[in-house]
């Protein structure tokens, strides 16, 4: 009997990649896709790396494919925007060794800036999309993806969502299949996408999609479960599980491939049921196509475009039945917050004191937008903090940005922030940029990057020096400061904002959650000296709380002894003590 274990969706995908005989993988971390690369890195048979961004990762996978091996790249939905440039043309070149790209959508916004639907991009790029509905399928669909990729000479997207990526299910393991490398052959018409070649390849793309459309009605992963024919439901992915839970007697057409759609299979299914529903999270991708074929169906008329679905919601919408439950109680919200000992808090406390606001970026530090710190004014996408501040200066002049900075993490800076900084140098900016250098990719769970000196596999490597990098592209004023040295930091921010040249402040201190860090001290409040003024509470550290009687206390199990609160106590009532 095959070994059965419980696996996270992302771990199952990694296992599938291993079993499929893949040799090269490249990715940039992004919730909910990150664990795939981390799990994959444990297999010696697969070369696995962190790339500085998703565009680079996909290009690495394309190169590896053309060289003749099975290759892999993965990213979150917004990462696909960054990788769109190579993606659209990868559809034209096709593959040599098979290539699968996992793209993880985030309906419900567990950890993202928007709710875009990858199927829309895949349709416009003419790339087939598979969508598994549990961990076991995730593993098997990866392998099917490689077979389809090689059979139809196309990259294949495997789309997941947060619920699939971060849920666990039972998986049966298989052995790795070693796939023979394909021969590398120079083929200008296929791999050099200049107009003369691309005209020809566009025809190939169209022909391929036609063949896939015709064939996929017979693919086993598109399957019909015929039960009561009063209700028929077309669905795919995780919503399939909700549908089975909500309407166990309904007939279901479960699509394993969501682009292109199996037209004849869908028409046949529709003809056998009285009322047809389409249940899909986010955009009405399946629904609109089904309706365009003249089939009557109910979809977004009764279902939302937003968030994650659930069985209760589907049961209510289709069957009109509501689950009996107690009413939700009124409770104070508990939003995520910066951890105790987080160096970002220190930098933000200085900005708050100076009444300086920030053009923000993507990372834990986005939490600096909320109370009590409240210094971040804008967040759009990776790298945008720097370019948006530049736009503000060009729009309203130097004076306008005299109380504004850009803040960006070290990993995000290397992702796409450096391009924006080059633009600032080139176009004569006088802005101040703060790189929040915490020596890791924090929010996604501590991944190495090009400035940490370690690879994904844990090997030693060259660590890019951010100061040297900024100087080498021509930033006239680059200053390194310890994030917890608030006096120097305050002085530096003031000087840079008062100056007339582009400045980069590299605020350095490791993320408090990094492995290997030892916290031998914690902070303690002397209740005799404490005047209960609440200044220490204003830095928003979760270890500091006020009791019902007004006494302010520091939880010694949470405190990491960073000592930031000491700087904000006017009565010297806080001291650092040893554990």
């Amino acid at each position, binding site marked *: 009997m095959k070994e059965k274990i419980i696996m996270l969706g992302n771990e199952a995908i990694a296992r599938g990649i291993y079993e499929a005989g893949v040799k090269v993988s490249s990715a940039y971390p992004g919730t909910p896709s990150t664990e795939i690369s981390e799990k994959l890195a444990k297999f010696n048979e697969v070369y696995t790396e962190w790339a500085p961004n998703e565009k680079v990762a996909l290009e690495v996978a394309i190169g590896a494919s053309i060289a003749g091996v099975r290759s892999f790249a993965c990213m979150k939905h917004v990462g696909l925007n960054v990788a769109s440039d190579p993606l659209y043309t990868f559809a034209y070149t096709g593959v040599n060794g098979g290539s699968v790209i996992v793209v993880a959508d985030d309906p419900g916004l567990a950890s993202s800036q928007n709710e875009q639907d990858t199927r829309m991009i895949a349709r416009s790029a003419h790339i087939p999309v598979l969508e598994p509905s549990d961990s076991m399928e995730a593993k098997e669909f990866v392998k099917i993806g490689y077979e389809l990729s090689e059979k139809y000479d196309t990259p294949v997207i495997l789309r997941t969502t947060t619920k699939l990526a971060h849920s666990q299910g039972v998986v049966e393991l298989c052995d790795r299949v070693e796939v023979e490398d394909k021969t590398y052959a120079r083929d200008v018409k296929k791999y050099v996408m200049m107009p003369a070649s691309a005209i020809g390849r566009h025809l190939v793309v169209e022909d391929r999609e036609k063949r896939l459309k015709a064939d996929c009605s017979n693919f086993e992963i598109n399957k019909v479960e015929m039960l009561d024919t009063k209700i028929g439901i077309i669905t795919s992915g995780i919503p399939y599980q909700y549908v089975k839970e909500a309407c166990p007697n309904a007939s279901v057409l479960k699509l394993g491939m969501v682009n292109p759609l199996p037209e004849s299979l869908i028409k046949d299914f529709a003809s056998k049921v009285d009322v047809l529903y389409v249940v899909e999270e986010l955009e009405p991708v399946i629904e609109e196509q089904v309706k365009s074929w003249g089939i009557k169906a109910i979809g977004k008329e009764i279902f939302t475009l937003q968030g994650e679905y*659930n069985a209760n919601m589907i049961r209510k919408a289709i069957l009109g039945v509501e689950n*009996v439950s*107690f009413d939700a*109680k009124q409770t*104070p*919200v508990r*939003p*995520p917050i*910066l951890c105790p000992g987080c160096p970002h808090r220190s930098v933000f406390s200085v900005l708050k004191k100076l009444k300086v606001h920030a053009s923000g970026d993507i990372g834990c530090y986005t939490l600096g937008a909320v109370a009590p710190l409240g210094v971040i004014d804008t967040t759009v996408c990776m790298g945008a903090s720097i370019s948006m501040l530049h736009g503000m200066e060009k729009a309203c002049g130097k004076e306008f940005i005299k109380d504004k900075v850009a803040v960006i993490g070290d990993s995000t800076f290397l992702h796409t922030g450096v391009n924006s900084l080059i633009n600032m140098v080139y176009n004569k900016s006088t802005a101040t940029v703060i790189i929040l250098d915490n020596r890791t990719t924090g929010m996604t769970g501590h991944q190495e990057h090009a400035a940490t000196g370690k690879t994904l596999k844990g090997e030693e490597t060259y660590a890019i020096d951010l100061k040297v990098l900024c100087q080498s592209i021509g930033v006239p004023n680059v200053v390194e400061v310890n994030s917890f040295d608030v006096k120097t930091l305050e002085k530096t921010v003031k000087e840079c904002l008062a100056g007339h040249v582009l400045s980069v402040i590299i605020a350095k201190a490791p993320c408090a959650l990094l492995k290997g860090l030892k916290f031998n001290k914690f902070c303690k409040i002397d209740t005799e000296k404490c005047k209960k003024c609440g200044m220490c509470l204003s830095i928003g550290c979760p270890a500091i709380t006020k009791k019902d009687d007004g006494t302010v206390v520091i939880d010694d199990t949470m405190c990491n002894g960073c000592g930031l609160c000491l700087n904000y106590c006017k009565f010297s009532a806080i001291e650092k003590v040893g554990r």
Partner: protein
Amino acid sequence: MKSLNIMIVGVGGQGTLLTSRIIGKTALNAGLDVKMSEVHGMAQRGGSVVTFVRFSEKVYEPVVEVGDVDVLISFERLEALRYSHYVKKDGLIIVNDCRIDPMTVVIGASEYPKNIICELEKEHNVKVVDGLSIAKEIGFPKVLNTVVLGFSAKQIGFELNDWLNVLENTVPQKTIELNKKAFMAGYNK
């Protein structure tokens, strides 16, 4: 065949993931189909976190719907109140007797609800465990989640040895004895 919907809630960083994984593995070893759902990413940073464990002959969705929870295990009082409406009429709520103020309370924007346990007892069967005190008694405050797990395991069922086997195979080698001690301290409470 045993079938149960479990919801585990707490504050990011309290170790809810380890708890759900041990429950899930124990159910798998008992020959059941298991699904779990976890929270990763930004919400983990000190926010309210939810994990689900479901086991039965066949499980479809990895989450438990509002009104369908058999056992709610909460590592913090306010979080028990926040998710109590998920629990079935005859379900059980296990609360670790601990208070962590959300930032909204710290900065005075809202108040931490009073008498949470009494509120919960109006509608539900509630069992309270003081995980931290028990963990401190055995000398290691950091294993309080294993104490809560042990306490919950007794309510969930399965053989004690099955639990201990999974615990042994899941926690880091160096901490096995300590975790077993913590588990038993909770189990026998």
